[in-house]
């Protein structure tokens, strides 16, 4: 929120520098996001009195001798049409900084520094400036809008800095207001805080006015009190629409509001000053002598001031006259009752509308205004009442109308009087952990206008009507400490707390163990978004009925690509692989441990299954299916379980290089090589591999007991075999058969594969098999017996023979 220092000074004497004020505001909860002098871009511009002004023949230029006070008399070439002898204008000295303008002399194109110039052979020692060139518009200073020199007042002293004259030395504070303090969304609201923090008295804005005895037949009714707890209307007659006075235009301009006409400016002024949005209806356009505040009818239409038409629903609140909507409540007035130059009487409105309704309507209709933004944050009725008085005072002050006796105050009975709250001082200090001296508590709460009364431990305060956030001793504690100063908090270390034990639990430890094992195996941990795109499911070529397509939709996604809760981690992994390849990283391995989201019902009626999953992506010319399998096996090792693999099919994986992963007979995942066509589509240059392992299914193995197995007492025997078999027999089939042949086998390891012309349509697999004795050393004939069993079993089952 923009707060001009000069405006703030209307309500509180500020005896500190702008820097100190920023510091004070910061310490009591108001962060100044930006603070700047209005004319911060302008420097070295002084009052110049043109003593002589001669036309330079054949040009539009004038050669001037300009009195710049202590800066001497300077020769200036000036092209402006309104320069004349005896005039006083802003004079940018050599070295001055001003705004540079385009050829139209209106459009600002950055800054420039004035140097000594030569025009048509005449030296020029500076520049006489227009309003635009020194950042002053018509609203900020009358006449500054002229496309020529800005004319300074006659009493301006030659050589004096122009900033104070033009208000460029004023400061603007851009203050961020937390959501609990809607009462500070105004200049006056900030003034209250500044007064409290500086310990200075607060000066209320003038609220007085005189009512004439004029009345007109009129009525106001509110038939949606839930959305409009308070509606104040006041009829003003004898309205004379004109320009607002310079001081009001200047203030509005400083807070980013352009002046329109006195009556409209008053509503905007009150909004900025007190934080209450107001509206003025042209009385002559109100039909049926009434205002009716009600929910809109379905499909009812209104055209707002900015000439946009809206079709409304019963969720929208409208202000109607006897026949039609004349305003979208709290958002914008209707075009049909706009204040025009011809307006001669107005009905002023100050109301409290339910902030969530205004917020929702404004959002649903896509119509945002200063008023709707203000209402969305919450307006209190104390301010509603005050604002109407202020607006009527300004009507009188500006002399633009007569306040009549026709007035209405429709309310639901909420009091704007202070509310009493009793708290215990001990409790307040108990929140803080320090003891704030009683006199400081009383001083602080007095400064904040809480009228504290202290009786022993009992503190009674009167909460002003605008402090709707104050509810309990905790709120009082916050008020006290933010004014007393957080530097008084002395760090302690929960001396009263019981001892608890902490750290990761088994699940968390196990997950970390897996992550570390994967890292040790060369995989990097990545993290991807929990949501993905419907096109990610198409990328995987999943059929319409694939379970992955049953995904939870985000109702209000940022865009379609972030609109579904992921049901598989693979697509984002593929995207990561493609991204790396695109950036020239042509081999690597990444894993992600994250959730996929499996709904139990759609739309959601209960928490979905957030399934922890590990996805591994690998790419590179020198990688293959088995490199990935090796990484997958790291997970099994970390959990001390064994994975089995069976051939599988996936719509996005190589038909001959895809496996499902099993643990104790349960499918826990898959791995495989990504289809070449998908790699091509994603502009990958090297093959990619992906695996997904269901960590939740494996979680039952977390913390598996590990028992030490004593080392064998007797020497192990190792035998190597080289088998020949049909090509369709798999390594796993052979291993399984070998293992089943003898109970003493502790290790079976494939060490060679051979397929070649020599073997015709057969292949050879070579295994080394370890036999571990239990109670006594093996005699050679015992081992021979084992070997014979293995050979005969393999022969019988798969027609496998030893390679000769």
């Amino acid at each position, binding site marked *: 929120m923009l707060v001009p220092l000069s405006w703030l000074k209307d309500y509180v004497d500020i005896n500190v520098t702008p820097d100190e004020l920023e510091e004070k505001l910061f310490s009591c909860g108001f962060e100044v996001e930006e603070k700047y002098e209005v004319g911060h871009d302008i420097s070295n511009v002084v009052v110049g009195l043109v003593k002589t002004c001669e036309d330079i023949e054949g040009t539009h230029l004038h050669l001037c001798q300009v009195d710049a006070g202590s800066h001497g008399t300077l020769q200036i070439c000036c092209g402006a049409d309104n320069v004349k002898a005896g005039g006083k204008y802003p004079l940018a000295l050599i070295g001055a900084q001003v705004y540079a303008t385009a050829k139209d002399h209106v459009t600002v194109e950055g800054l420039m520094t004035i140097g000594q110039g030569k025009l048509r052979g005449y030296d020029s020692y500076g520049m006489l400036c227009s309003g635009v060139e020194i950042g002053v518009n018509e609203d900020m200073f009358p006449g500054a809008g002229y496309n020529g020199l800005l004319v300074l007042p006659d009493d301006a002293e030659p050589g004096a800095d122009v900033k104070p004259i033009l208000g460029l030395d004023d400061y603007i504070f851009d203050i961020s207001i937390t959501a609990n303090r809607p009462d500070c969304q105004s200049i006056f609201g900030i003034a209250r805080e500044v007064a409290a923090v500086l310990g200075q008295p607060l000066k209320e804005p003038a609220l007085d006015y005189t009512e004439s005895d004029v009345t007109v037949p009129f009525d106001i009714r509110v038939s949606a009190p839930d959305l409009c707890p308070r509606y104040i209307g006041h009829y003003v007659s004898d309205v004379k629409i004109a320009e607002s006075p310079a001081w009001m235009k200047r203030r509005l301009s400083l807070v980013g509001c352009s002046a329109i006409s006195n009556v409209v400016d008053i509503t905007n002024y009150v909004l900025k000053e007190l934080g209450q949005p107001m509206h003025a209806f042209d009385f002559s356009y109100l039909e049926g002598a009434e205002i009716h505040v009600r929910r809109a009818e379905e499909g009812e239409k209104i055209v707002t001031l900015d000439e946009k038409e809206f079709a409304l629903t019963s969720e929208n609140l409208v202000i109607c006259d006897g026949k039609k909507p004349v305003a979208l409540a709290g958002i914008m007035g209707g075009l049909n009752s706009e204040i025009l130059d011809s307006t001669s009487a107005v009905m002023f409105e100050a109301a409290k509308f339910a902030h969530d309704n205004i917020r929702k309507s404004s959002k649903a209709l896509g119509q945002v205004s200063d008023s709707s933004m203000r209402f969305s944050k919450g307006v209190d009725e104390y301010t509603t009442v005050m604002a109407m008085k202020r607006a009527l005072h300004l009507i009188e002050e500006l002399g633009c109308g007569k306040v009549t006796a026709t007035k209405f105050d429709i309310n639901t009975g909420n009091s704007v009087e202070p509310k009493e709250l009793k708290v215990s001082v001990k409790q307040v200090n108990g929140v*803080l952990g320090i003891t704030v001296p009683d006199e400081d508590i009383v001083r602080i709460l007095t400064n904040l206008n809480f009228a504290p009364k202290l009786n022993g431990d009992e503190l009674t305060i009167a909460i002003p009507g605008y402090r709707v956030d104050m509810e309990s001793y*905790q709120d009082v*504690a916050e008020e006290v400490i933010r004014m007393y100063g957080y530097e008084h908090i002395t760090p302690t270390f929960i001396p009263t707390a019981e001892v608890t034990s902490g750290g990761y*639990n088994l699940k968390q430890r196990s997950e970390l163990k897996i992550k570390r094992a994967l890292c040790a195996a060369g995989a990097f*941990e990545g993290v991807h978004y929990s949501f993905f795109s419907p096109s990610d499911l198409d990328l995987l070529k999943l059929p319409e009925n694939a379970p992955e397509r049953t995904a939870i939709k985000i109702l209000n996604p*940022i865009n379609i690509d972030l609109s579904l809760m992921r049901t598989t981690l693979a697509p984002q992994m593929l995207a990561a692989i493609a991204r790396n390849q695109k950036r020239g990283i042509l081999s690597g391995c990444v894993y992600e441990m994250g959730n996929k989201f499996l709904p139990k019902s759609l739309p959601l009626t209960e*928490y979905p299954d957030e399934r922890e999953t590990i996805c591994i992506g690998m790419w590179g010319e020198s990688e293959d299916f088995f490199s990935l399998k090796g990484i997958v096996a790291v997970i099994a090792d970390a959990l001390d379980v064994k994975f089995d693999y069976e051939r599988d099919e996936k719509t996005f994986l190589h038909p001959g290089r895809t496996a499902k992963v099993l643990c104790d007979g349960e499918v826990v995942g898959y791995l495989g090589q990504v289809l070449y066509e998908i790699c091509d589509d994603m502009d990958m240059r090297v093959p990619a591999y992906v695996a997904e392992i269901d960590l939740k299914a494996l979680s039952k193995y977390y913390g598996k007991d590990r028992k030490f197995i004593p080392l064998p007492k007797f020497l192990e025997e190792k035998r190597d075999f080289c088998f020949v078999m049909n090509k369709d027999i798999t390594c796993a089939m052979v291993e399984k058969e070998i293992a089943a042949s003898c109970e003493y086998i502790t290790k079976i390891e494939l060490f060679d594969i051979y397929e070649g012309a020599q073997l015709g349509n057969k292949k050879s697999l070579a295994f080394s098999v370890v036999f571990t004795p239990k109670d006594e050393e093996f005699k050679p004939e015992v081992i021979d017996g084992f070997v014979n069993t293995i050979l005969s079993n393999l022969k019988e089952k798969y027609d496998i023979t030893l390679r000769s």
Partner: protein
Amino acid sequence: MAELGELKEKLSEIRSKIESDLQGISSSKGVYEYKKSVMDAKEGKIGSLMKEMGKIPKELKADYGKMVNEIKNWAQGKFDEMDEKFKAQERKARYEKETIDITLPEKKHKQGKLHPNTQVRNQIVDIFGSMGFSIYEGNEIETDYYNFTALNIPQDHPARDMQDTFYLSPEFLLRTQTSAGQIHVMENQKPPIKIISPGKVFRSDDDATHSPMFTQMEGLVVDKGITLCDLQGMLDEFVKKIFDEETRTRLRPSYFPFTEPSVEVDVSCFQCHGKGCKLCKGTGWIEVLGAGVVNKKVLEGCGIDSNVYSGLAFGIGIDRIAMLKYGINNIKLLFESDLRVLDQIDD
């Protein structure tokens, strides 16, 4: 003794033969081969001498044996000497030959690295774990009740505007804050409670400095007599450990619906130590977390007696800490799995 004399002669012949043969040998392998041939029990010049023993008269056997042993020892010594000499030469040659350019690149065993967020998370867990905090991992998908209402953010509360929420249904949403986990913990656990709750959170914000998904860590203590002083004490300890021992905290008023008083916690800039630099935008302070004394409404909503217990809560942006600590300049880099990024951070 004729035999012995003969033998002596024979042995001295053998000796000179061996000596001259050895002249022609120039490698340890040659020595080995030659020794093998000489010592061979059947054919060898020396090895076969013992074979002759049978033919030697009994009374001469001892002398014969002595002489044979003598020459054996002599030959062995000779061979050892030669072997030693050649081996030394050969090793020297081998070392020379095997000398490498040690500035050639190393053979890497490429290890992966934990994600920067995981690293920071582990550090935070170490710190708070040692203070007795356990770790609660909540759901990413939450209900409106747990994410807002129970945290004192009722339906019409303006604070809902502070966080643009992704809705999945009127009831379910993507949690906007890990604070949602607080309520589950307080509903299911009696004080004393000390938890931290790390996790992904989501807000509908996607631009240069915002990611629609980021990572937070909530902390909650509920016990008897917990105060704002405890909050600062605990966070002081935390920032000293996560940044450095010089780091200090500063509290300033703020607003969160579920804490009262609420504070923003700034830390003294760990780069310039408060002098003012680019990182702290010249202020000497960096905003790192939000915190406060748990609002009694929140405690009461979870069935905890606010007359007996009080609490403190804090929320830390894990990505923010990671970015600050490591100087990562764009939050989105954390979610792209670019190996050039992931390979840099290893604490």
